[in-house]
């Protein structure tokens, strides 16, 4: 393996201007495949979700999934696209065993949605408009396992095994126009675009868009041109970049690699490249001819899709608030900084916090638990926040118990711990673990008296006006009650008994 020469990112940008094109594939969350009624459920037995249509058996006739078309229109509308009045499917012909039909049913020169844009927000708040070329409908391919090679890679494999459960699952491919003018921020723009697109897809409810599960995949096309020139350079296409961080790294790496090749007088080969998660590098894949000969032709087994304008308008009316605008509104309502909002977004906590406040919790409490205790637990156990076995309603209940004084923060953490451990809902955990704050004034009063008696010197200081010293006595009482006292009330009692104004 040859070591790829790179120039520093700064040097690359001093001489060259990057132009990007991003292609994102989204697997729709429909119950069935795009052209047949086979289930799309993941992680099922190999080849248990196939039929004559998705296996491409002779005589089988595909029929398009209504929700697949509807989802495509929703995505198009949310991306400010025009929706075709009439469009067709096309066969993309190629020989590769991931499609048993020897072609992929896609759309060619008549995409269902075209000419749109998506505004994305960069870290510093700047809005960058990414122009959308098109969004079209197609189907996913089967899953190959390469056998006999050293690393499960295709090179050196003796044969391959195919599972066609995924073949035919609806895909929407979203293609940007060339992204120009981003300069040094191109990798950041790429990441922000994919992140915003993912939020949008989720808000539309058409897919969960989990990149780690391959429900959303990105190809990064990148070329450089000398600063101050207009003509695009030769591009490389880095395939299947499957996390937000990787999108940024892949773009950055390609900028540095292209610059190294170009500045040493070389030429960029138009090719696909593979991204390597371990070190953020890319390596050469297949050489791509400019006129790749897929011999597209209109799919004769499917009739044209001509979405009625009334339907399109109805779908437009039902579009959710755009994620970026919703975040701006929530940021305002919650009174948090841009930076905090970004952290909440990155943690995948926006919807959870909203659901928790909807369940009655004050937003600061909701944020505190999801971004604190729960985020920590999710991190430690390698789960997403939404995968934790606790619901927003349960978190809201914990917040309520804190507000009412039944729990203090320390106890609340134990309650959450109990819920996460599967001990039941918050009230059950409080009951079982005996976690109520000691609110029995008699017991508290006794505990305070004992603490004062045991710490006469400190008590004298407080009597003498050193109110700050009360903390030590509060600590003693909390210790005596094993944390189950309301610290604020304890402080009040101490000052009261010592005849000092708080």
């Amino acid at each position: 393996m040859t070591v790829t020469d790179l120039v520093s990112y700064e040097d690359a940008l001093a001489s060259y201007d990057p132009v990007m094109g991003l292609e994102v594939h989204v697997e729709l969350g429909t119950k069935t495949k795009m052209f047949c009624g086979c289930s799309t459920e993941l992680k099922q037995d190999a080849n248990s979700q196939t039929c004559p249509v998705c296996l491409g058996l002779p005589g089988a006739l595909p029929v398009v999934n209504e929700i697949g078309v509807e989802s495509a229109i929703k995505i198009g509308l949310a991306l400010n696209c025009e929706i075709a009045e009439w469009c067709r499917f096309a066969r993309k012909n190629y020989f590769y065993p991931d499609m048993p039909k020897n072609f992929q049913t896609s759309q060619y020169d008549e995409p269902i949605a075209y000419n749109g844009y998506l505004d994305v927000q960069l870290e510093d708040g700047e809005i960058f408009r990414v122009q959308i070329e098109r969004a079209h409908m197609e189907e996913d391919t089967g899953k190959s396992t390469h056998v006999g090679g050293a690393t499960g890679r295709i090179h050196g494999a003796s044969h391959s095994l195919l599972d066609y459960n995924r073949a035919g699952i609806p895909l929407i491919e979203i293609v940007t126009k060339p992204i120009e003018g981003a300069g040094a921020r191109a990798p950041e723009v790429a990441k922000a675009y994919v992140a915003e697109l993912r939020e949008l897809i989720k808000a539309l409810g058409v897919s969960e868009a989990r990149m780690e599960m391959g429900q959303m995949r990105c190809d990064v096309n990148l070329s450089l041109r000398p600063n101050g020139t207009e003509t695009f350079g030769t591009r490389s296409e880095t395939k299947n970049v499957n996390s937000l961080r990787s999108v940024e790294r892949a773009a950055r790496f390609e900028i540095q690699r292209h610059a190294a090749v170009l500045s040493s007088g070389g030429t960029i080969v138009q090719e696909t490249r593979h991204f390597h998660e371990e070190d953020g590098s890319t390596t050469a894949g297949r050489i791509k001819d400019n006129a790749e000969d897929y011999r597209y032709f209109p799919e004769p087994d499917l009739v044209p899709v001509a979405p009625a304008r009334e339907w399109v308008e109805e779908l437009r009316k039902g579009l959710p608030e755009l994620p970026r605008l919703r975040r701006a509104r929530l940021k305002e309502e919650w009174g948090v900084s841009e930076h905090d909002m970004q952290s909440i977004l990155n943690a995948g906590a926006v919807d959870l916090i909203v659901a928790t406040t909807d369940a009655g919790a004050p937003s600061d409490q909701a944020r505190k638990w999801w971004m604190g205790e729960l985020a920590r637990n999710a991190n430690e156990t390698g789960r997403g926040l939404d995968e934790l076995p606790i619901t927003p309603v349960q978190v809201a209940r914990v917040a309520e118990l804190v507000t009412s004084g039944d729990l203090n923060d320390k106890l609340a953490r134990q309650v959450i711990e109990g819920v996460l451990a599967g001990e039941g809902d918050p009230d059950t955990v409080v009951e079982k673990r005996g976690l109520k704050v000691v609110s029995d004034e008699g017991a508290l009063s006794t505990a305070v008296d004992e603490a004062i008696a045991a710490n006469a010197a400190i008590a004298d200081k407080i009597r003498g006006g050193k109110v700050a010293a009360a903390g030590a006595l509060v600590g003693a009482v909390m210790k005596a009650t094993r944390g189950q006292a309301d610290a604020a009330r304890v402080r009040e009692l101490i000052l009261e008994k010592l005849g000092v104004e708080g």
Partner: protein
Amino acid sequence: MPGITREEVAHLARLARLELKGEELDHFAGQLDDIIGAVARVSEVADQDVPPTSHPLPLTNVMRADEVRPSLTPEQALSGAPAQEQQRFKVPQILGED
């Protein structure tokens, strides 16, 4: 005069993974040229007001509700496979990488 050259036939044969001998290329190039010529006459009679058609029936929007229907069993799905392993279709070494 539309038509197809011997080189184009050779290119298409490669894309279709067909191995054609020299004389076959000559033979098919001639035949395909005749066919394309015949079909091209359709464009001569079709005026601007006749849209190109890809389907014989004037239908649009034939769609299916998103409801799961039974699939084949893995055994049925694999019954026509020349080779199988681990309940999967077994295919020879793939040379061109995608």
